[in-house]
């Protein structure tokens, strides 16, 4: 069989991943029409390209169905609780920088730290009879972060998109989301807590610890790793 490399199937993440491999003289490309998720690999033998949604790459790596995969640190940490046993980071690719942060309304002048957030959550619950809602799609990461910080009386509410808008829409009081520049936060009257960095993420090439390798695949892996380190 061939060594399977999983790469995000569309958008800037795919293009930048292709560019990064090109710098190491490995040409990745999509084949067929724009709608067909097939790809090819040139410049190295016995490696095949698997185009996947970035969100599915952690699961495929953990299951050992792909040997290598490119996806963000945030997705690996959130989707794979035992990620240290399942994958190992091969190279940080230097793009796709995104920080998972906790943000609250800019007008919360009394709230700058997680300590303030906790005190505010207690008061909010007393006044409104409900826990302070934090909108996010990174449930596990955020819950562990807030638990370690000793924040209580909050509720996570699921938000799969337009998370910054949930505060103004009053479906959440705070958010935990990926931000790269902070413009969207500012436009939605939000600010980042000074100690509210949950995780600094970037696109990373991961190797599966669980995928089996036959001789041909092992040779391909060693060749590829050698090329990357060169």
């Amino acid at each position: 069989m061939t060594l399977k490399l999983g790469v995000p199937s569309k958008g800037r993440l795919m293009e930048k991943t292709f560019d990064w491999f090109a710098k190491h003289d490995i040409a990745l490309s999509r084949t067929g029409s724009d709608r067909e998720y097939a790809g090819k690999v040139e410049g190295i033998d016995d490696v095949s390209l698997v185009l996947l949604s970035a969100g599915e790459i952690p699961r495929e790596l953990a299951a050992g169905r792909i040997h290598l995969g490119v996806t963000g640190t945030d997705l690996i940490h959130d989707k794979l609780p035992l990620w240290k046993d399942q994958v190992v980071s091969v190279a940080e690719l230097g793009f796709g920088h995104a920080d998972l942060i906790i943000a609250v309304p800019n007008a919360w002048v009394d709230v700058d730290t997680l300590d303030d957030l906790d005190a505010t959550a207690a008061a909010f619950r007393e006044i409104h009879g409900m826990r302070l809602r934090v909108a996010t799609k990174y449930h596990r990461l955020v819950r562990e972060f807030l638990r370690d910080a000793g924040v209580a009386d909050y509720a996570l509410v699921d938000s799969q998109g337009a998370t910054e808008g949930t505060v103004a829409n009053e479906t959440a009081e705070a958010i935990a989301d990926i931000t790269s520049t902070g413009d969207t936060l500012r436009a939605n009257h939000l600010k980042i807590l000074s100690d509210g960095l949950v995780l600094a993420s970037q696109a990373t090439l991961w190797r599966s610890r669980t995928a089996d390798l036959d001789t041909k695949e092992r040779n391909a892996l060693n060749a590829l790793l050698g090329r990357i380190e060169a």
Partner: protein
Amino acid sequence: MTEARNRALALRANFEAAGAVVVEPPVLQPAETLLDLYGEDIRARAYITNDALRGEQMLRPDFTVPVVQMHMADGAEPARYTYAGEVFRRQDDDLDRANEFLQVGYEVFDRSNPAATDAEVFALVSDAVSHLDVRASTGDIGILMAAVRGLKTSERRKSALIRHVWRPRRFRALLDRFSGRSAVPESRIALLAGNDPFQNVGAVVGKRTRSEISARVAALHEDAKTDPISANEMDVIDALLNVRETIPFALEQLRDLAVDMPAISQAVEGLQARSEALNQRGVDVDALSFEASYGRTSMEYYDGFVFGFYVNGRADLPALASGGRYDALTRRLGNGVEIPAVGAVLRPGLIVELEGPL
């Protein structure tokens, strides 16, 4: 599993003989109640499922909440309940920990004599495991809570500390700040130095109103004027948290501390009364260990007597049995109505495993 189940039923029958009524709460519990009680952390500990009609449901992570609710709905006092069945614990970090196991429990709702009911529960559990190579740990969260309530500081600071008694790290951080051991964050200093905190912040968005924000700013101003908790009181709290002795020596140390902090006297006398009640039940109190900070990390809202039985030389195993007094939990579930409650659970699966093949 059959052997464990038989043992579970036998243990339940013992508790029934001790005067308890058998109850069988449903496996599926409304998630909202448990979330309101334990907060978001319960999601990391319990399996959640849902349907279109009832919304989120939890596979019971323990029996305490449904038993308390059952009792509050139609229980006469005093009451004793027992149960046996599976509980389910989500495990995200460790495949070796059981995500489904049998629990047998005994819960007492009785206002008359807390020391006697504490001793009753402990002695019954002790009898069920004492044939194994186990040691018991005990504690009393009520003493720490009494110490906090007795601090010479603002009510607001005391309630912040009480709220985090079960989160030791946050509790410590608050103590350090209230005593001036840690620095005030710069953002706080800037906020308190300014005249109009709302200058240049733009629109107030969201459900938390401007007046709520102003109220907390005012509270922070007031807090800044509050004297730090004295070094003397901090020393007593530190000494209290470090008490780790057999019960007679622990009592001696706590009585010494009560000289400097009379607020804990009543709670210390409660420990004395409990120790006498345990003695009357045949427990060797002189050999029983007491740790003042024992039981603070559990999510059970224990706020008085706490105990656990552990297998010697098997740090890999969870407690074979654990329990305590949870008046605070009944207060939360009863919207302020409190029912003095003490109870314990055993793990029959572990018991038969340790006994080995006959």
